[in-house]
């Protein structure tokens, strides 16, 4: 921590000045331009644009999809972190290395590969007809007829037909590392003595997890969850490869901005941008709050 003798160290005005210049030129002034653009509208116009039913539906989709994806990551991320830290199994290290992959892979590539996987002739989307043929063939050999309709497994192309499920799917991918990577360090530091103690007091395994382990994990877990959620809200590159783009149904909020821009409505695009930005800032604040709470909690314990 920086202490009081800090003025002995040189370079304060140089580094601070440079940081502020860089920040202002590249981030603050552009962001101010965004806010300034919305002042071209009256408040009534701003309100009308940002609460238009189609725009509202896009926020709703963005938040629900990001929330669902974060939830899926919350559940599976916890399991993954748990298994990777506590058990040794063949390939464990390999799978651990895979976790960071969504950070490193460009989102456009993620969208591209996800889109092609669930095509009718993709690896997963094309699995349906093949599985059906296989099952029916096997049943035929056993004299059971053909229990499956030829189209029974066509739902495996669901990201394209289900409207929003595809969006959730790619958001799970881009948010995957967050929960795992926040929970892992806590699990590593975890002292198994607590479990032994709890067991000696007669607690069942599930009770131990619920009453002893999870409360300890919770601050990290919720922070990972919030990060995954925030990441999903802004995501664009991967989603546009897979979303079906029906107004009011499957258009995410960033896409609304692009749509407004293409319609020459700069102020409207800026207005939606401001709303999105404000929400992200609130989430950012909330995450910081959670982290601070967690730190205090840790200290108290």
């Amino acid at each position: 921590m920086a202490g009081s003798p800090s003025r002995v160290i040189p370079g304060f005005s140089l580094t601070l000045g440079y940081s502020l210049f860089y920040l202002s030129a590249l981030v603050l002034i552009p962001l101010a331009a965004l806010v300034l653009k919305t002042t071209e509208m009256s408040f009534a116009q701003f309100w009308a644009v940002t609460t238009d039913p189609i725009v509202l539906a896009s926020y709703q989709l963005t938040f629900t999809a990001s929330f669902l994806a974060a939830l899926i990551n919350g559940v599976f991320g916890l399991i993954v972190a748990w298994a990777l830290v506590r058990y040794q199994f063949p390939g464990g290290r390999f799978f651990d290395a895979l976790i960071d992959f969504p950070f490193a892979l460009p989102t456009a590539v993620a969208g591209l590969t996800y889109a092609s996987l669930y095509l009718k002739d993709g690896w997963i989307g094309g699995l349906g007809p093949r599985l059906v043929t296989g099952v029916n063939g096997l049943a035929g050999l056993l004299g059971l007829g053909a229990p499956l309709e030829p189209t029974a497994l066509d739902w495996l192309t669901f990201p394209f037909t289900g409207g929003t499920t595809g969006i959730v799917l790619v958001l799970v991918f881009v948010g995957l590392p967050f929960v795992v990577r926040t929970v892992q360090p806590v699990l590593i530091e975890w002292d198994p003595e607590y479990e032994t103690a709890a067991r000696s007091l007669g607690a069942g395994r599930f009770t131990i997890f619920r009453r002893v382990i999870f409360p300890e994990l919770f601050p990290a877990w919720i922070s990972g969850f919030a990060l995954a959620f925030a990441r999903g809200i802004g995501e664009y590159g991967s989603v546009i490869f897979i979303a079906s783009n029906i107004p009011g149904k499957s258009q995410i909020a960033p896409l609304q901005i692009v749509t407004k821009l293409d319609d020459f409505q700069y102020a409207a695009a800026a207005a939606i941008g401001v709303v999105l930005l404000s929400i992200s800032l609130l989430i950012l604040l909330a995450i910081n709050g959670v982290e601070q709470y967690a730190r205090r909690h840790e200290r108290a314990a």
Partner: protein
Amino acid sequence: MLKRKFLTLGATLGLVSLLGAGSTAAAADVRLLNVSYDPTRELYTQYNELFAAKYKKDTGNILTLEQSHGGSGKQARSVIDGLNADVVTLALGWDITAIERAGLINPGWEKKLPNNASPYTSTIAFLVRKGNPKGIKDWKDLWKPGVQVITANPKTSGGARWVYLALWGALANAKTHDFSTAQGQAEATAASAAAKDFPVYQNAEVQAQIADLFNNHVPVLDAGARGSTVSFAQKQLGDVLLNWENELWLARDEFGPEKFDIVYPSTSILTEPPVAVVDKVVDQRGTRAVAEAYLKGLYSPEAQDLAGQLHYRPRNLDALKKYSAELPNIPFFTIDETFGGWVKAQTTFFADGGTFDQIYKPAK
């Protein structure tokens, strides 16, 4: 380590000082940027080669032609925002009007070149899966139970706006003309000039039918015309694709004629993608002469033949006849006669709060 750091620093500083000294050698070659919409990439790649060769022969100078392709509205916006396009070759007149309104193109651009400044035309037709399993032959078949229709979002795609107008005009029995003869073309021009009121806009029945189509038969709405072809051909969604004729031919060629059939409805709209010189940019860059020659060249016999080869309908009747096997003649209605031009169509249908938005009000 330390030394290297200073070397890098020195190199950077050297570069910066060079930038300052800025002995910018005057570029010997002329550059021209053509900002166009998605499907024309193949057309302009080839036309550019043609024109650059001609330019070299005529002037001895090298002409570098740059291309930009994207959704038509997006492209118009980029030009308005500062993309220094010398010429724009877009999907619909509205997008050029938008650039005109931003003060970059002088009014009257559509009269500067023949045929409403659109050197080639196209139309909206159907692409169906091989053998046409759902029996889609004309517009009314799109409403058959269980038929899924693929088109792009008219709010963002120029092609999809033409689709929307084609649907609307066909349902309202718009007056058609024979564009394969000079006489038919003259009739159409006269009719457009004479058209005063446009009863199609008041047709509530048509609006209800189109709302039903978009709400119940359209599973995805891609942002661009190209995206909708990808959805139909690659993601294998839907039973019929509504798109530019040239786009359907391209898809058929790319994915193989054994997969798809092109179906022509009984009537359709004559789509007229316009071209214009961006006056403000060419005056600033001093490229007006070459930009104007570039667009004029699109009406030359070679360019008209190229257009026909790539499944655009040439304005030149000889070239049109040459490719009539692939571009069958059907009766067309025009946007000017039926809808009173792009400004009226845009504000009624596609602007915020227009009929298209009303169709998609989420029910809550």
